[in-house]
């Protein structure tokens, strides 16, 4: 492997932590990925034979991965802080010239958080899907795709190099595509899947280019080697790499300006929305940025861009959320906004990384819970997603109501629920860093409180607006059980912050720095709570104390804009799609008129020349002999001329 040629300037780099060779349970890292992959293979290749037991296998493989992850986590807990990173080298993958790359997995404080989130929430959602998809003829295939997703997502977070990470990155993209379009017989759903895939691809190119830059500059793509070599690179390159990585993250995490696909992705079955488009896959961008901390730490520009993107998205997402009547889309907008918080935190540097991950984990729990609750509501409402036809469901489905409610309290940030702790920390860090970013985060919190209260009220309070013939009922136990567990996470998630637990835990990987406070912490918390209360009050006034129309009212210009996702699709269409189509048409024209003519012309020229040359071949020996004689004369001449 390549040794960086330039020494890092003293003090410029974070002290990278030592990574030990995998031993004991850490040797089973590969199995975590292999188990769900095996499940996917069996389910997707096994055909109808596996119909009867396929879903059970699907759940068990994820449970197996979770158990391995849990044991690894407990083992890590028992070790010293500087002995919590392990690398398992599987085999040499590429050995070509300067590029030498092994397949290896890295278990450390950061990746184990993700492993636990993915496998635990993933397992719960698998359980939930058993019942939710019970009447779908293709349930086995659904579980196959889910297992494929889990496997790819684990590969993404456990990879020890950018290249292997990219394999997982593409794998989750594929699984996401397959699952969004799971009901592909509905043309709109198929289109949504395609849209998600194409927009993700734009981001993937960013990640690829970042890898090209890294290979060019550092000669390696392995995390440890890249991070070791980064301080030796010029600022321009570091910034370029950071921005390209950000492009990748923006695509995967539905951040501005590539956020438009996420709302359409709600076409997939609700468990998919919960697992992929709320809890795990869409947070991969945050993982990428946090994992690349040693790169971002060296480029203020890249960090600032990351923070700005996060701030823009959190406001945009929140605004869109206020106008959506589709419960899943409202939640999706909220996901976008919450990931905006995480990206904002990640853009704040060492002061924010830990809080980004903290919010990611708590969000993973409460948002998955919210989505699954929404699924449970839909289950009881004949798959209707329009909140204007809900209302007063709390009595009909009490467990769902309770779980959704706890998730709701967590997301808007009411103490002592999980979201309060995590979001408050981000707002605080943002204020410490930059007043504008802080204000964005604060306003976002207010809007979040408003739109989530709106969802809550329109669904479970206000008055009945059900369609005739709809008889809401509570979902079966297998569906409510995961809800209850996830709600527990929403309540208790804040406990991770006790004694700065998560901050200390992640410090060896991402570093930490105590920020100087711009204003007293208690004042900021009070301010935040005040904004939240205002938001909730506004929602109460508009939706609880005034009647909700069963059909969508006209609304003003702003409402219109929010309903249309702030015209992001229109912008994309005008700025990218149309010019793209024009460019295609122009190229086709150019190909027909220009290149084809050129090629045909060349062929005609060659053919014509050949035809003329051919006439020399007259068939007469005398002309052949003459040719030879002339040739001989030329040959002699050529030899003589050289001497001159």
């Amino acid at each position, binding site marked *: 492997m390549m040794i960086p040629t330039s020494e890092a300037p003293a003090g410029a780099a974070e002290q990278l932590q030592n990574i030990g060779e995998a031993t004991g349970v850490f040797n089973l890292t590969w199995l975590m990925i292999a188990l769900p992959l095996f499940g996917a293979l069996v389910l997707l290749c096994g055909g109808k034979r596996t119909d009867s037991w396929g879903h059970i296998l699907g759940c068990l493989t994820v449970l197996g991965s979770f158990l391995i992850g849990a044991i690894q986590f407990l083992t890590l807990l028992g070790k010293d802080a500087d002995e919590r990173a392990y690398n398992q080298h599987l085999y040499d993958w590429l050995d070509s010239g300067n590029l030498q790359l092994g397949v290896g997995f890295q278990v450390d404080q950061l990746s184990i958080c993700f492993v636990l989130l993915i496998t635990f929430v993933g397992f719960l959602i698998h359980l939930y899907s058993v019942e939710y998809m019970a009447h779908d003829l293709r349930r086995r295939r659904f579980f196959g795709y889910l297992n494929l997703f889990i496997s790819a997502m684990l590969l993404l977070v456990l990879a020890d190099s950018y290249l292997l990470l990219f394999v997982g990155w593409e794998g989750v993209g594929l699984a996401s595509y397959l699952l969004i379009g799971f009901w592909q017989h509905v043309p709109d759903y198929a289109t949504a899947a395609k849209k998600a895939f194409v927009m993700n691809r734009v981001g993937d190119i960013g990640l690829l280019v970042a890898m090209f830059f890294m290979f060019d500059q550092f000669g390696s793509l392995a995390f440890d080697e890249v991070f070791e070599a980064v301080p030796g690179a010029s600022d321009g390159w570091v910034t370029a790499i950071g921005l390209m990585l950000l492009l990748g993250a923006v695509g995967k995490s539905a951040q501005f300006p590539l956020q438009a696909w996420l709302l359409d992705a709600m076409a997939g079955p609700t468990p998919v929305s919960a697992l992929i488009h709320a809890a795990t896959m869409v947070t991969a961008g945050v993982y990428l940025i946090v994992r690349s901390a040693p790169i971002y730490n060296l480029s203020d520009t890249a960090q600032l861009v990351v923070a700005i993107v996060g701030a823009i998205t959190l406001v945009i997402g929140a605004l869109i959320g206020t106008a959506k009547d589709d419960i899943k889309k409202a939640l999706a907008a909220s996901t976008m906004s919450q990931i905006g918080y995480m990206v904002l935190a990640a853009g704040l540097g060492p002061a924010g990384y830990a809080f980004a991950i903290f919010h990611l984990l708590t969000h993973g729990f409460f948002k998955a819970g919210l989505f699954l609750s929404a699924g449970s509501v839909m289950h009881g409402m004949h798959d209707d997603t329009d909140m204007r036809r809900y209302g007063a469901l709390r009595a009909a489905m009490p467990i769902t109501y309770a779980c959704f409610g706890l998730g709701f309290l967590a997301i808007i940030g009411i103490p002592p629920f999980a979201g309060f702790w995590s979001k408050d920390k981000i707002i605080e860090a943002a204020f410490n860093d930059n007043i504008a970013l802080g204000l964005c985060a604060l306003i976002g919190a207010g809007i979040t409180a408003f739109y989530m209260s709106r969802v809550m009220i329109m669904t479970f309070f206000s008055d009945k607006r059900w369609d005739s013939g709809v008889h809401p009922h509570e979902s079966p136990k297998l569906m409510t059980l995961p809800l209850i567990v996830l709600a527990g996470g929403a309540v208790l998630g804040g406990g991770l912050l006790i004694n700065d637990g998560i901050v200390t835990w992640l410090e060896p990987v991402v570093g930490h720095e105590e920020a100087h406070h711009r204003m007293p912490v208690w004042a900021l918390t009070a301010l935040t709570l005040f904004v939240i209360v205002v938001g909730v009050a506004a929602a109460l006034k508009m939706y609880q104390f005034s009647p909700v129309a069963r059909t969508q009212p006209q609304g003003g210009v702003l409402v219109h804009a929010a309903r249309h996702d702030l015209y992001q699709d229109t912008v994309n269409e005008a700025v990218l799609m149309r010019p793209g189509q024009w460019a295609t048409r122009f190229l086709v024209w150019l190909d027909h008129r220009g290149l084809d003519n050129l090629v045909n012309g060349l062929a005609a020229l*060659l053919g014509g020349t050949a035809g003329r040359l051919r006439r020399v071949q007259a068939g007469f020996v005398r002309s052949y002999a003459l040719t*030879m004689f002339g040739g001989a004369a030329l040959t002699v001449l050529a030899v003589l001329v050289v001497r001159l």
Partner: protein
Amino acid sequence: MIRLAASETLIPAPNIEYYELSPILIVFGVGVLAVLVEAFLPRAHRLHAQLALCLTGLVAAFVVVCTLTDEAQENARAVPQKVAAEGAVAIDGMTLFLQGTILLLGVVAVLLLAERRLGGEFAASAATVPGSAAEKETTRLGWVQTEIYPLLMFSIGGMLIFPAANDLLLMFVALEVLSLPLYLLCGLARRRRLLSQEAALKYFLLGAFSSAFFLYGIALLYGYAGSVRLSDINAAVSGSEDNDALLLIGMALLAVGLLFKVGAVPFHAWTPDVYQGAPTPVTAFMAAATKVAAFGALLRVFYVGLGGAKWDWHPMFWGVAMVTMLFGSLVALVQTDVKRMLAYSSIAHAGFILVGLVATNAEGLSATMFYLLAYGFSTIAAFAIISLVRDGSGEATHLSQWAGLGRRSPVVAGMFALLLLAFAGIPLTSGFTAKFAVFSASASAGGTPLIVVGVLSSTVAAFFYIRVIVLMFFSAPVTDGPRVAVPSLTTALAVWIGVAVTVFLGVLPQPVLDLADNASFLIS
């Protein structure tokens, strides 16, 4: 009785290294025996006797060549090196490599000549006038012109000497020995005999013309160096500067004679007509083996004898190589006859081989030898396949008749496609390895412009090769088109050998490349 009393003391008995020369002697011996077979064996037994005799002789000669190579290596020398027959024959790495190649190609050619099931490629009796009653009678009686075997053996014998000749006079004799039987063989086609005889006559006339150039060149060089021995000419070239004109014109004329044999532009004119008119097995043999021998002679003359005057002949060869590659590739574009197309393709290939020759280093020598081996086997198999595609009047060589052949006979068409890909130089065929070797040798010797022209010509050439593949596999078959005849075992064997070598040298070329590397050694 006349006694020359003093002669015993004046002329010492020459010292002949029979063992080193035995491959040549075996082949000539078998040729003489074959004539005796013609004279004394009844007509019915001749064919089998000839076949057994020739194959045995060629294989025996090949075994001796292998043993010679082996022994040299046992003596801790990478290559054998011996000047035999009083300095007239050089037995060195190149000689043995090319002799081995020619002998193997000879074996394949004999297998092709032995084809009987398709009604034979050769006239029942060449002496009869085309279209006469005698011709019909001999055909009806089922006669076979078995003289082709001794003719072939003599030709092969000449080819064995040609690249080994260390003496210009011997080289000239070898040239005539290899050419004269070929002229005859070209005129022996069973069908379209007039065309065949015309081709033979053209070949003979032009061959004689080129021999004259060759001989005149020898005379001038003798005038310059006072000797026809290559080593003496070399010494004269590096030793003196005087009387340059003799050297320059002599080497140019020598080049004309040899370039005629390899079919390089502008001495190529005979190639298409002769390739088309000659019986296809003879065309196959000519295209493959004559090239090997003639390039061997070219290499020896210009590397050994005229190596010191490299800067005088180098530019001329550059020009010839470029023009040959371009002309062959271009004119092949508009051919409508498969045999003619392959003839122009062989001209283009002569150009590619010349690229290796003008590299004038050991790498170029080994690349040239490898190319000759690879091209020889591919081309002999390609012509063999052409002889299988027949309709009622014999071979169907017009391209339009080949449309859709791949649908009717996928195996044969697939093999032909593979050979065409080899000619085009597509990877995993011997053609790619050979072209790559030649071009890389040229690159190391500063021949970038040559490579550019070579690659451009290859691109043009790829068009007409692939056009045939498209025609065979993607066109609707023509009604009452030709069919692929089921050949006798010998022809099938020849085709399979050629295809196998083509694939082998594309997939696992290293052993043979190493062999050529070890053999890239010339003694003077």
